[in-house]
């Protein structure tokens, strides 16, 4: 550790705390304050609004399915990237980071191009076979998967690299087949990385706005998610319920992260 003089220490602390306060704590705090400005009863009354309840439940459904898909593919892709050598591996690794750098709106538009039922490359064929992607559940799940894709992988890959494959080789020499090695050795070794990746994906999926807005069509009571209802209610001067839904979204995300930090063993112990 670098030794700092007392005034420098206090200056740095003030800067850091000030930065976090003005950027994160104060704005989020204001949301809480506004959500409960007219009392708890008024806050709870939004749950009797059918439109809001539908939006919240749709968000939950889409987010959970997207997280489940990203969990399976994320762990699989991580194993592929760390444990196997194949041509095009670097390109795949770079592609996985793409959703972090591309704006979700662009993601939405690109999905629309491929899967829309009238002119999409693939969408017309699917439509003929009775599958509708755009303006319905599958499209929203796809968009959410896309934006949350790297989160599980980027948590799991470094842990897989760190533990190496000697434990897996030992398990195989002791008679375990590939499935047994995965469930008994690999998964327990990476479980905290997986849990963390899932929580980050869940938080990200609950909050997704741009990509979902484009592929969902934002139909009230059908494809309107919680983030979309926040926007529409805010614009139609129903700010109280916009704040209340915002609070619910923020609360669930914070809750996820708090639960994980309680469950996660302290650093230094085996993960």
């Amino acid at each position, binding site marked *: 550790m670098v030794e700092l003089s007392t005034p420098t220490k206090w200056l740095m602390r003030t800067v850091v705390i000030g930065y976090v306060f003005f950027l994160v704590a104060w704005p989020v705090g204001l949301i809480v304050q506004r959500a409960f400005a007219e009392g708890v009863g008024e806050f709870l009354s939004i749950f009797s609004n059918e439109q809001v309840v539908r939006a919240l439940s749709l968000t939950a459904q889409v987010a959970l399915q997207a997280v489940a898909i990203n969990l399976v593919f994320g762990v699989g892709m991580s194993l592929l990237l760390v444990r196997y050598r194949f041509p095009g591996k670097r390109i795949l690794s770079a592609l996985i980071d793409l959703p972090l750098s591309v704006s979700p709106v662009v993601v939405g538009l690109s999905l629309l191009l491929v899967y829309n039922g009238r002119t999409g490359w693939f969408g017309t064929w699917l439509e003929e076979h009775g599958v509708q992607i755009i303006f319905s559940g599958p499209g929203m799940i796809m968009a959410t998967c896309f934006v949350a894709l790297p989160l599980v992988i980027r948590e799991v890959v470094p842990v897989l690299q760190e533990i190496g494959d000697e*434990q897996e*080789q*030992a398990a195989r*020499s002791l*008679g*375990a087949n590939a499935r047994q090695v995965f469930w008994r050795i690999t998964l327990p070794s990476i479980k905290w990385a997986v849990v963390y990746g899932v929580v980050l994906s869940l938080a990200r999926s609950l909050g997704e706005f741009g990509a979902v807005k484009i592929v969902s069509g934002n139909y009230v009571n059908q494809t309107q998610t919680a983030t979309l209802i926040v926007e529409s209610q805010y614009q139609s001067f129903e700010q109280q319920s916009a704040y209340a839904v915002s609070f619910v979204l923020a609360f669930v995300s914070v809750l996820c992260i708090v639960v994980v930090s309680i469950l996660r063993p302290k650093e230094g112990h*085996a993960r």
Partner: protein
Amino acid sequence: MSIDVTGVTKKYGDFVALDNVSVTLPTGQLTALLGPSGGGKSTLLRIIAGLDTADSGSVHIEGRDATKLPPQKRNVGFVFQHYAAFKHMTVAKNVAFGLEIRKRPKQDVQAKVAELLDLVHLSQFAHRLPSQLSGGQRQRMALARALAVEPTVLLLDEPFGALDAKVRKELRDWLRRLHDEVHVTTIFVTHDQEEALEVADEIVVINDGRVEQVGSPDSLYDTPANDFVMGFLGDVTRLGGLMLRPHDIEIDVEPGRPGAVQGRITRVLRVGFEVRLSVETADDAEVKVELTRTHAQQLGLVEGGTVWLTPAVGATTVVATQPVPA
């Protein structure tokens, strides 16, 4: 009945790790694969275990063709240099792993684990995690884990390489005693010639992807097949076109013996009971000679003195084919 490796070749790109290696490793013995780092001995061990596959050639374990078998079907126990402990399992669970995979009844597993932990003196640590053990204890746990499945062969890859000198020596003695008790065919890889000479029944010297010589520790030491084996198993020096061990040179302060080579002592180094001399002769740059302190005192050897050197009667010698090592 044994392990037969026939014509095994393994390449990593341009690098030839094993070049048409054929060797038979006898059942029930403790065999050392000895050689310098990067010589191919670990690769050979991993191919026997099925953790690597040979480009060509075959491996038979106890008469059964294992060339194409995956590791879990070969019934081998493998011990890694860095233990490969299952970090999230207790010591007892680690040892039980192979038995639980084989779906043995619970009481049998418990009894076997207790027996093995007793064998490796880890009974009181059964419920600890590997991270709470020392390196030597972890390696003993790894051995118990490998022995639990009653393997046809026990393979150890530089098993004591990551341990400090004292623990390494203890474990070496312990491995020898364990093998005398359990009698499982055991092959271990080492680059430490002392370890191989002390522990093994049989030594396979591997260098540059080829088998240089196979034999008992004594036969390798006494009749090395070539100057590489001679040089790898102990110190060597040259005297008149012969390679021999520094302690196999007779030293005199008077001429007289037939074929004696005259030289001048350039350096005297005393290490405990031993005296190491550097002697400059006319044709060889430097001859190393070792003798006991008592012997050196009797002869009154000092730097700058003139001496006559002769190979001792019965000395192990090899005709030098390579230039003097620097």
